[in-house]
């Protein structure tokens, strides 16, 4: 029969209930070259698009729930031992460091293990927290906001600290003197605007914030907002364009190889 091969497929599977059933009918115009082995795996996945999609959504949800699990609140510890111990336990579990008043810095060792001897410092307030690189988020910040004598907080390079988290920091306004947000990928100038509550702040580090649209201008505005604070961050001239004389000077310098 000289009819095209594709059209044969249209008719046969109905009668024989073909190997792939109804779904096989839509592949009527498959060119000859697609019979290679590698192609069939992709074709297999493409046939089951919604199943693959559901699997990927499940994996995404699992990732998110992992972060949630890390940021759960330790209510038992808080009730038994008080907010300082609960906060210290939370920070140490995340991989950060904590300093009680009059004590040395405590941090977990390379394997993430730490001693529980700070459980005796129930009445000693926490003075400084270094949560650099921890997966702390909006929920987890609950544990830290109960520390009314916290003087120094470092949230450098925390991937889940965003503008919403910054809007909660006003609760530490009474004591916080040093804050570092360097390298947080989700903090933008909109979150920095909420820091005006922290009137006791003396050192603020806002360098290397990729989400801030104009670092130089933001630095000026934050300095205006917090007059008593020493703001470290971008050089104010960073965002400025060169004037015509300076531009030609630069090109003149760069031409000789």
């Amino acid at each position, binding site marked *: 029969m000289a009819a095209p091969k594709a059209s044969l497929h249209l*008719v046969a599977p109905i009668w024989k209930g073909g190997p792939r059933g109804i779904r096989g009918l839509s592949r009527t115009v498959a060119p000859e070259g697609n019979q290679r082995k590698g192609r069939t795996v992709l074709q297999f996945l493409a046939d089951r698009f919604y199943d693959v999609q559901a699997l*990927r959504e499940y994996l995404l949800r699992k990732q998110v729930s992992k972060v949630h699990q890390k940021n759960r609140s330790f209510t038992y510890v808080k009730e038994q031992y008080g907010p300082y111990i609960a906060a210290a336990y939370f920070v140490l579990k995340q991989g950060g460091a904590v300093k009680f008043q009059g004590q040395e810095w405590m941090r977990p060792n390379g394997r993430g293990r730490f001693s529980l001897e700070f459980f005796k410092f129930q009445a000693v307030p926490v003075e400084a927290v270094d949560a650099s690189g921890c997966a702390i988020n909006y929920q987890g910040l609950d544990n830290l906001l109960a520390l009314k004598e916290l003087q120094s907080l470092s949230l450098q390079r925390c991937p889940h600290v965003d503008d*919403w988290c*910054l809007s909660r920091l006003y609760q530490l306004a009474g004591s916080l003197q040093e804050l570092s947000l360097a390298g947080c990928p989700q903090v933008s*100038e909109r979150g920095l605007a909420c820091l005006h509550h922290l009137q006791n702040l003396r050192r603020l580090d806002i360098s290397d914030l990729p989400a801030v649209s104009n670092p130089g201008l*933001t630095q000026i505005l934050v300095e205006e907002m917090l007059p008593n604070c020493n703001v470290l961050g971008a050089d104010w001239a960073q965002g400025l364009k060169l004037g015509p004389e300076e531009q030609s000077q630069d090109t003149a310098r760069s031409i000789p190889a």
Partner: protein
Amino acid sequence: MVKKSSMAAAGKEPGRAPGTQAAIAAASCCAKRGTRHTSSPGNQLSRTSAQSRGVPSPTPPRARRTDVTPGSPMAAGGGHGRGSWGSHGETAAYGAEGRGLEAPLANGRARLNNSRRGAVTAEGTVCGIECCPRRGGPQRAMLRRALRLGLGRGLLGRGLGTWRGDSTLDWDGKVSDIKKKIQSVLPGGAWNPLYDTSHLPPEHSDVVIVGGGVLGLSVAYWLKRLEKRRGAIQVLVVERDYTYSQASTGLSVGGIRQQFSLPENIQLSLFSVDFLRNINEYLAVVDDPPLDLQFNPSGYLLLASEKGAAIMENNVKVQRQEGAKVCLMSPEQLRNKFPWINTEGVALASYGLEDEGWFDPWCLLQGLRRKVQSMGVLFCHGEVTRFISSSNRMETASGEEVTLKRIHEVHVKMDRSLEYQPVECAIVINAAGAWSGQIAELAGIGKGPPGTLQGTKLPVEPRKRYVYLWHCPQGPGLETPFVIDSSGAYFRREGLGNNYLGSCSPTELSPQEEEPDPGNLEVDHGFFQDKVWPHLAQRVPAFETLKVRSAWAGYYDYNTFDQNGVVGPHPLVVNMYFATGFSGHGLQQAPAVGRAVAEMVLEGSFQTIDLNPFLFSRFYLGEKVQEHNII
């Protein structure tokens, strides 16, 4: 059965494309002749064995009496089978009508074989399908000739000129047409072989949402999220302007606050802010970038004069009870915190510390749209022009007679065309924003003697509001919240460059004549000069020198009864649900309202936030739920 209706179809629409009719006629021709498994042509009206495998009759577009529903695999498989016959039968049809009538069959067969391109076999098929071998003697030949004559009469409607099967016909074009028709009847395509309906909405949908703005999409999202089984509910969103040029969502200033006086409003806002905070978990789509709402958590600052101070204190108490983080400030504290405010005339101020601010509503809309499409909601670019409903007279428990209406069909008219599609539906959601009143009138709400429940209209109408963008070099700094003055003027910062957005809300006390004409979205710049600037300059002295950069206007879906939303079903039109009338705070409550309406539709009652005070029946009973705000 197949042949009767196909012949009927052929006769009914003589003006149709020749290929279509030929295909149908040829299909019937092949069917008459039988398949490879049966050689007897049999009775014209009997089903052949192939057809008995479940080929349904081809339905004309509007008919609904089909044995098999269009979406089922049986129909698809059967139609597909039919279509295949059509393709091969096509060649036969031309051959048949061209030659079969004049010449005796033996000669005709030879000519048929020669006229076809390529598809000639040793057996010498008539129709080009190996399923129809020509066997039998002269009796068979005579029978077939008679049948062909009958077939020929059926094709008369196409016009005499096209019978001859000349080579002047566009052969390649016809073949590609036929291939397209096959594609459309394959599984997944619409079961409509006569013309292309891919641009029309589906013929059936469980829920039809009128209006594709943030409220409509929020209802669609929650319906799909709260359904008991994946794919249980079919949702269709009908939006007549996909550019959203007049929709309130895109033109909104984008603020969100919890500083209301009604506990329900506060709870709605609280959940909505929680939704926005976790938006990348709610609206996550695999492979798409996360949403950046550009939320400014700067808070709201409401200023009250002497008259409104007591109300404000009360409001703050209620807000704190519900869990909002709001604090009261005296004029001295205000001056300390915000030195650029002139506190003359201010007795009290309430300042939202957390969970309040403003964001980009367009981003929320696009995020919802993308997620909702990935969940399987269908979109239609069209306008709802009619509802077909049925009425039932029923008696209440106390013996009164009530007429309950049920909407059966929604007529969706396509954009810039007179074509419309009746969509059968079970539930209609009115989320049409400023035009919800018109949609309610289409459903017959308000058609009755005034003062009765039938005569109670939906009191939502469009009201135009202006927004102005100005630049003030010495204006308030980065910490500026969304300030709402006691006079009704409001402003907020926009961006880093000392630009500000603001306007004035006409208070309820202002007379009706001052309302701008909602017929268009033209901006009245005099309004800024007369009504907005004086109040702004009085409150913030730095605003005495400012330069207006641009302005726009948008609609409030203004509820003239009590300026709060209408949520839930209508008492008489039992399957129309409202999600509209929020009079300027719809955007900030949209996620929570969407969830409430979805719960109402799926469970029958509000599960999380009790919005019973916002039902439609309050318009008839006269129970106003009004905000005791100072604006």
